[in-house]
């Protein structure tokens, strides 16, 4: 693990080339080639079922947890293909963290233990005060420290939904990944909590490369630097990447007609 302790660090670039994703015989995503820029927020938009989440999960090999799922093509993280034969998926996931749609703090653990979970569960021998420092730094990083510093020993489920989601973000950044994947992190949250998470995303890109799947186009417009539009031509077809560009270009002057229809709301 490299140093991510400094206030701003260079994160890693992800290069995806000719990625095809299958569930058994079902072809879910077809030949995606894109580069995810370091220290930037890349939003993935598109209608339901077009493979956004599937694509996101293939970036840290969570995808293959589903029985029968497989991938062709390559995902190059920092010069190494994460799908190369001798690569350990567990090591990939330590570099590429993930935040899920529904906040899922571990119910048996306190707030503090939830944040330290990644380090504890990986049995990295850390001293008590060192762990405390990481917990505080991660919670500060997730803008949650001030709200929970008095009750770190309470269960994580005692927090509100928005706080739980920030707790999950703190848990993900505590292991200091290079890339942070977010799968519709705000879809279960109210507007105020959503705003808090979006602000947080803006801060996090100083240290991490962020990919966020969202159904909310305003959110993509507000929070991201680059936007990728996924679409499927007909239902049953595999989803594919239609266009990737700077977010302002996508929302003001997209090259593709389908993108323009989607972002202007004339689609579906």
């Amino acid at each position: 693990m490299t140093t991510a302790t400094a206030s701003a660090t260079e994160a890693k670039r992800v290069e995806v080339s000719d990625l095809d994703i299958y569930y058994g015989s079902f072809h879910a995503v077809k030949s995606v080639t894109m580069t995810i820029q370091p220290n930037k927020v890349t939003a993935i938009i598109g209608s339901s079922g077009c493979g956004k989440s599937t694509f996101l999960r293939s970036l840290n090999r969570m995808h293959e947890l589903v029985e029968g799922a497989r991938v062709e093509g390559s995902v190059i993280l920092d010069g190494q293909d994460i799908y190369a034969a001798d690569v350990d998926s567990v090591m990939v996931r330590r570099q590429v963290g993930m935040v899920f749609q529904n906040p899922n703090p571990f119910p048996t653990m306190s707030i503090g233990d939830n944040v330290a979970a990644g380090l504890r569960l990986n049995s990295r021998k850390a001293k008590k005060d060192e762990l405390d420092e990481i917990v505080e730094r991660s919670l500060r990083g997730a803008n949650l420290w001030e709200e929970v510093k008095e009750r770190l020993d309470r269960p994580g489920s005692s927090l509100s939904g928005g706080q739980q989601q920030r707790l999950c973000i703190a848990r993900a950044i505590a292991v200091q990944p290079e890339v942070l994947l977010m799968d519709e992190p705000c879809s279960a949250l109210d507007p105020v909590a959503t705003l808090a998470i979006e602000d947080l995303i803006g801060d996090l890109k100083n240290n991490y490369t962020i990919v966020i799947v969202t159904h909310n186009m305003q959110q993509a417009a507000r929070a991201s630097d680059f936007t990728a539009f996924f679409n499927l031509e007909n239902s049953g077809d595999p989803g594919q990447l239609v266009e990737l560009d700077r977010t302002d270009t996508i929302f003001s002057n997209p090259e593709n007609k389908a993108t323009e229809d989607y972002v202007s709301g004339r689609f579906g």
Partner: protein
Amino acid sequence: MRERATERERRYEVERDGREPEDERGREAGTTDARTPLVGGSLPRWGPWAVFSGVTAAVAGVLSVLGFNVALLAVASVVLTGAIIYGWARAVEGRRKATDRAITIAVSSAFALALTPLISLLFTVTSRGLARFDVQLFTESMRGVLGEGGGIQHAIVGTLVITGVATAASVPIGIMAAIYLHEYGRGRLKRALTFFVDVMTGIPSIVAGLFAYALFVLIYGPGIRLGVMGAVALSVLMIPIVVRSTEEMLRVVPNGLREASYALGVPKWRTIVKVVLPTSFAGIVSGAMIAVARIIGETAPLLITTGVFNSVNFNPFDGRMENLAVFAYNEYATPGIPNEPYIDRAWAAALTLLLIVMILFFVARLISARFGVKTR
């Protein structure tokens, strides 16, 4: 959409103006009030109970002439009460509420019916067991005792040792087997194993006892009796119960927790040990407790594996061992003369067994509350 809205507004106007009083709910409830019907007819709160008391008294009167019978009284009163309440509610409150009342009566009666034998059993065991429930019972064994006196210390020790050994063997095996089936197993092998686990839950306990006996006879020769043989027999009965209950508990752990753990770069085995098992801990403990309660009162398999013995024996690997169920059975089945002391000891042993199970459940609750999922 807009048409439907205006339709609704129009109807509301009509109903409020009272020009359309034929509303279904109003009519069913027997009201002539023309407002939007929110208030319906209702039986008085004391109604059902009054009907029940009246019917019971009437049936008791009839039965006192024909010949009294408690069971018939209960059944006849409940059925009659149900019919009368349904008819009355149907007339006053309408069909929906009448059905609700009928179902309520049916469900409550089923509950009472299910509880009756349990309460009867608890009452019988307690009242008859108290006759010999004294200090001597716990401080003495049956060594050299004929007739009155004696105690069941040897049987308590035997029960705890045999059950303890069986539990120590079965719970880890059962939990690990369940983890295999739910977290690792796939395809036909998993289906086959699940099927055989289900079959194993239905094994008659005497067959488990014969299996253990046959197994040890192969090693030690005929006539062997050991505490650990009983434990093996009980394990055969216990493991499938633990597997099934643990598997159910693993199934209710949200997949999101496993994924959250994987996404932190935690390997699968650590995810299971540190996330999945703690989350389902309370359920696994109570499942294991139910399995213990199921086997602690077994008689048949222990009769042929641990034998009958009158002295205290702490060592399951050395000689015969008495236990509470076998003791109660023998005292009751083959009493001496006079038989009262034997019968009394049998009931006292049954009461002791009941109390041991209750204490174990209490301890399991404490463990679950201490180490399980906390929400506050």
